């Protein structure tokens, strides 16, 4: 395989978890909820996907468990935000801390138990590449982009969801159940993020480690902002970040004198620069984003 092919393959592979998480985040943000708990939902997906995959021997069942685990954490966020009317930002950060605690602790306990009972090392089965060196999850992630676009921009349900994000009071007045809509959006966002997390523990490494998502949820969050809250823009941003991280790995492997930190910083710096200079106030953000209703 030549260098360009290898690089493209790596860019898609690294971009997959970002793409999955970002598509979910996009749906929820368009409904007006800023989900900082995305990192926690990914971590939940990575851990429970790993455990289920390891327990059943099937990566597919692992991915299904990840989907449910991510959705469960997002459901908790939705209850906090929609029922208790807690602040979205603080609740999201709290869920990140809790998810880091639960998965880290449970994994260490599981590992201790496993190693004590004579196991060698804790590994899960992985998804095998199906087409062009990519696994099923990567293809699912790519396929989800037009689907999410169609749902948000062309379907009646998507129109309702966007109305909820722009002006919840008006949406409620025209007969849309704002809480139900946001709750469903949160479930979808959690499921997407969980699947993105499962990709990390069932496709890239077959193992889990404490805090293995390592800020990828926040990169996905940045991609949504940079993609101006559109499905195509967000997907482009995710794949661009995937390419940047793939380039970092390639430079390191080639022993080039390029500081990897510069490329690691790229998603965050680029997002801030875009917000300040390019997007100005035309960010495309829903009017009611982050506001309680």
């Amino acid at each position, binding site marked *: 395989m030549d260098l360009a092919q290898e690089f493209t393959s790596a860019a898609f592979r690294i971009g997959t978890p970002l793409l999955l998480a970002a598509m979910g985040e996009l749906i929820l943000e368009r409904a007006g909820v800023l989900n900082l708990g995305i990192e926690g939902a990914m971590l939940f997906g990575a851990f429970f996907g790993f455990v289920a995959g390891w327990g059943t021997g099937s990566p597919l069942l692992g991915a299904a468990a990840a989907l449910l685990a991510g959705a469960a954490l997002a459901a908790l966020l939705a*209850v906090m935000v929609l029922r208790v009317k807690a602040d979205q930002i603080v609740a999201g950060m709290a869920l990140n801390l809790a998810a880091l605690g639960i998965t880290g602790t449970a994994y260490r306990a599981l590992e201790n138990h496993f190693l004590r009972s004579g196991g060698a090392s804790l590994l899960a089965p992985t998804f095998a590449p199906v087409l062009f060196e990519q696994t099923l999850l990567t293809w699912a992630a790519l396929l989800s982009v037009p689907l999410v676009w169609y749902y948000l921009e062309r379907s009646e349900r998507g129109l309702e969801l966007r109305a909820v994000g722009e002006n919840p009071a008006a949406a409620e007045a025209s007969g849309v159940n704002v809480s139900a809509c946001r709750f469903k959006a949160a479930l979808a966002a959690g499921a997407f993020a969980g699947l993105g997390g499962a990709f990390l523990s069932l496709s890239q490494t077959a193992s889990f480690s404490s805090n293995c998502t390592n800020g990828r949820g926040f990169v996905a969050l940045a991609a949504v902002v940079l993609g101006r809250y559109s499905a195509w823009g967000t997907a482009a941003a995710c794949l661009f970040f995937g390419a940047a991280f793939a380039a970092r790995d390639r430079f390191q492997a080639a022993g080039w004198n390029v500081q990897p930190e510069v490329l690691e910083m790229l998603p965050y710096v680029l997002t801030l620069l875009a917000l300040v200079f390019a997007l100005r106030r035309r960010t495309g953000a829903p009017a009611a984003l982050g506001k309680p209703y």
Partner: protein
Amino acid sequence: MSSPERRTDSAGAFLWPILILGVAVLLALIVMACGVEPRAAFAALASGAAGSSIAWGQTLASMAVLCFSGLAIALSFRAGIFNIGAEGQFVVGAIAAAAVGTKLLPEALPWPLGVSVLLAVGAAAGAGWSAVAGAMKRWRGVSEVIATLMLNLIALILLHFTVSYPYLLRDPGTIESKGSSLPACAALPGWGGTGFHAGVFLTLPAALVLWAIVYHTRAGLSLRAAGLNPVAAQACGIPVERVRMRVFALSGALAGLGGALALMAAGRLTKSLYPDYGYMAIAVALAANLHPLLVLPSALIFALLETGSKAMERSAGIPSEVVYLIEGLVILALLSRGLRLPGSRAAAGTAAEAGGEA
């Protein structure tokens, strides 16, 4: 008393006991999963947090860091600013203090001067880092949540960057990536290897000064008004935008000061200088009801938990990650009990502002 608004919401009242119960069950399960008798685990926690002079030294040093970041967050949230950037401001304060301390500070300086210079540098750097987010919000309407989150992530990468290369701050004499050691004039007086340092004594005056500012000055009144209802505050002649800028800078300075203190206590810059304390500080500030004086006991409790859990991991084999779980659940429990932040209520106000601009 001007505490954040409390409500008695049926769902909140329902969730609070469930969350507490959940914590207890989870903790018991974790302890059992590790094959440890719960009583032994708690004994390890208690003796590790407060059982010896070394334990107290580490706990109080952690408390100082949590206290400065907690004060920074309490101040911002009071003013209706969702500045979650204490983590980044702390790190940037530590990096700047390390840069000045190892590259510029003359060796012959007497220690009070060297320490003061580095504290000032850390505070200035933290304030500057925070002001970036403040300026983005003020002049470009960028959400401070996104801005401070991105700045946190950038600051952490900067930390890894600076301690990785000898032409930056890395100590060329070691194999590990860590910063050069600070000169003697930047050494905080300690207490015989217990981890306790003189910086702990700065927390009480800092909390008192902030309490006085927030509750007993005009500036504090403006700050609280801007948090509770920016539109009404503006109508009363309070320059809300300017007040917010000052809050960004002051809270950044507090977090940066904590960074400089942590650096001087450690003696050199490392990759893991109190990691994630800027996020834990959110729990500290919320548990303190955003009151500057209550931040002190709140920070002490979380610091006891933090050092105790490290000891519990060493002696009883219980993963120290359990602290993150407890902190997350404490925040959720406080939120579900009906703690409302001033900024949440201001939502209607900011919507009106946005409408006014359009």
